[in-house]
């Protein structure tokens, strides 16, 4: 177990390193000059050059990268143009938002977590639940209804579902407040009220995949020998389905869920845009648009951390669910 964890951590660090180098290089391949956008209409080339100098954009690439990495570990002095001393973990200074990137991240990350985690719980419960029910009631109206529901979810787009929900529940009926983010620690009710539409629309769309996947897996498992054996032993239905079949059927679902949740934590940009929330996803997209390297780096790295972490969690879950899997 310990060996497994260490190995995974090392490969995670390597992944993050590669991601960070690629992001850094890609930024310089972008056609956009971050400085020209900062300059008013009567700016001249000489002044632009001085701003570039001041922001360290003229230093060699390697030293810019090394400086950035050093900042994360030990903090560094960014100079007066970028807010002065920046303590570890220093993610740099955004000259677009005019604040330390760490401040941006600590503000937008809770928004994304608040959208994704409850939504993921909802879509897993809903998706796996529907899949199980339709597998066990195969061919009945319940099965068909569940399949229809998931087909609808899989074919619709979030910006459409979200806009319809907003129009009906917020603008026309006025049952729900305009989506906004409040910290769950300040006011849990307001937190839920402001995000519930985002959860529902994400859950509706995502649960479709899980319903179909878990239905198929469950049907396959139910036809296997060990299930027949279990039935033949005279085990109660609940034990056969719940303990034996479900465990085997759910493994692929866990894999997909790990990837989905990891990716969603990296940024649910469409959800955030539809509901006017500012989480990691929108921050990242806006940073790319503005050529805001420090913010791009931070958002990309954090997304990568989530995906890597989600994969480790999935592996651990495998071991817990399926006794045949041994970590080591």
């Amino acid at each position, binding site marked *: 177990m310990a060996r497994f964890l260490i190995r995974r951590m090392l490969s995670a660090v390597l992944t993050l390193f590669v991601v960070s180098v690629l992001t850094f290089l890609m930024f310089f391949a972008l056609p956009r000059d971050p400085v020209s956008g900062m300059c*008013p209409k009567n700016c001249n080339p000489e002044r632009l050059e001085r701003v570039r100098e001041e922001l360290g954009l003229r230093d060699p690439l390697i030293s810019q990268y090394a400086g950035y990495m050093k900042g994360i570990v030990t903090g560094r002095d960014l100079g007066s143009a970028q807010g002065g001393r920046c303590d570890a973990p220093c993610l740099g200074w955004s000259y677009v938002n005019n604040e330390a990137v760490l401040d941006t991240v600590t503000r937008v990350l809770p928004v994304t977590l608040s959208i994704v985690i409850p939504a993921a719980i909802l879509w897993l419960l809903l998706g796996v639940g529907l899949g199980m029910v339709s597998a066990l009631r195969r061919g009945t109206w319940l099965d068909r209804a569940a399949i229809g529901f998931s087909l609808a979810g899989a074919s619709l787009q979030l910006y459409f579902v979200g806009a319809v929900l907003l129009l009906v529940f917020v603008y026309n009926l006025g049952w729900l407040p305009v989506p906004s983010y409040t910290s769950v620690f300040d006011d849990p009710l307001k937190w839920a009220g402001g995000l519930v539409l985002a959860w529902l629309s994400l859950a509706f769309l995502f649960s479709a995949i899980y319903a179909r996947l878990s239905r198929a897996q469950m049907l396959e498992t139910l036809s296997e020998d060990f299930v027949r054996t279990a039935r033949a032993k005279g085990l109660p239905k609940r034990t056969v389905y719940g303990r034996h079949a479900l465990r085997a059927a759910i493994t692929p679902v866990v894999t997909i869920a790990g990837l989905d949740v990891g990716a969603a934590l990296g940024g649910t940009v469409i959800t955030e845009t539809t509901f006017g929330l*500012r989480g990691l996803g929108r921050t990242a997209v806006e940073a790319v648009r503005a050529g805001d390297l420090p913010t791009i780096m931070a958002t990309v790295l954090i997304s990568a951390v989530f995906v890597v972490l989600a994969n480790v969690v999935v592996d651990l879950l495998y071991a817990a669910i399926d006794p045949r899997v041994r970590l080591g």
Partner: protein
Amino acid sequence: MRPRVAAAASGAIALVVTLGACSKNTGEGTTVDTNRQQTGVIATDPKESAGPAAEVPGAQKGGTLTIIRETAISHLDPQRTYSFAGLMANPLFARYLTTWKDDGKGGLVLVGDLAETPGKNVNNDCKVWEFTVKDGVKFEDGRPITSKEIAYGIARSFDPDLTSGPTYLQEWLADTPQFDTKWDFKANKTALPPGLTTPDAKTLRFEFTKPRCDLPFAVSLPTTAPLPADKDTGVNLDNRPFSSGPYKVAANQVGVQLTLDRNPNWDPATDPVRHAYPDTFVWSFGPTADAANNRVIADNGPDQSALAFNFVPPSLVARVAGDAALKPRTILSPTPSANQLVINTQRVTDLKVRQALNYAIDREGLVKALGGQTVASPMTTLMPPSTIGFKAYDAYPAGATGDAAKVKELLGGQTPELVLGVADNTNEQTIGTQLKTNLERAGFKITLRNIPDDAKLDEVKKKDNPWDLYIGNWAADWPSGASILPVLYDGRTIKAEGNSNQSYFNDAAINAEMDRILALAPAEQGPEWGKLDERIMKEHAPVVPLYADVAYNVHGSKVGGIFISSVFGYPSFVNAHVKP
């Protein structure tokens, strides 16, 4: 619509968002006030600069006014403010040397804000200017505002760390565009830049090497907002500016929400324009233009006292324009942001061809293609109607859709082949396609060449650019001909790159006339610029004036007093109030 800051880089990006490509039915019952004209003057009587501002009929104190906007305001630090949203937000918490009394219909009076008058032209040569600071003006901590803090504000605008703000004062004081090398703010924090002095706590004195007759206008920009040196937090001031105006920052979640509450030390008796009726202003960032306008149209709960700062997007125009019940809640007004078909006069040297282009233009078709009269308002002059001394004329009456006979006559059987460079953004693509059809119908041969959106402005600013025609936009920083005609048509300013004179027009007689007008007292210049505007078009036709951008905003049913600034073309908040 066009972020002023982005004029240097990517002016059209915002346009893409606002205009889109949809054409739509604008419906009946919605008219743009096209008769609006500037009748601007400079207040000479100190009484006009004194407070309090005349009450807005029916306005009451209290309530929270919410302004919903898609993206955050790029800078709050007054010395760095240059975007339209910033210029509209700043007066809530910052006061300047001078400001505009604006009736929202083009009637403008330049008055003293912190200063008792809009400046004294000491020797009548525009080289030495003095401002006297009003009594009773205070910062949010109760300290009095003196000439020292105003001077410090101007001094810190020399700091290269504080990018993005206007640079007029700095360049004029240092007498070079490289002002930050001429005077180093960081090394001289206790001193003042060359030419700027404070003889006493009430007097601020500017001494320039060249006549700067536009100074009273230039000091209406936020560069002159005061700041005590001990409150200067450098780049961090952007998120927590120190207030000299009626409101102060209560909370600022960058990119999410900016909350402003009352500054108890602001005295209305000193302020000629601001009313500060609402108790609180909340800027809420995040919702798209569609979402924000939908919310305000729905008019539920707190949104009844909200304004969508982003203009009504194309997807909602038909709905808003077609709903008579919404009419009292919409504002539709042309802005001073003017768009032209710029003719590269180095390449199109034949005056007749340039005049023919002017006769050929189908402004009605263009406005339709752009989305109708809620987006664009046709114009035939170089200066927008909201310029002091504006003269309405049409040098080449082309009717609504162009005068084919006149074009034929001028071209004399020739088919000029012209290359039209257009940025690859939705807005310019729409204009480009429309113009090609329009001009080819009239007898030209037009080749469209796409220019990457990011690079377009830099490219057309190069003297040797390879295009005959391109689309230009100019929104002046103050409504004076001096900030438009010499900037765009003085041929002596032409360099290898970075040109604002994008028609590369250079005529000795016109240049001399500009010098003559610039030497006049600011108050006398207005009508002269109007005449010169017409003369340039009649004699030289260096552009085809196309249209002015139109502001189209919706607010909730409890909002009152919002008007479109005659100076910047965006909603102004000085008269805003919340109905109980």
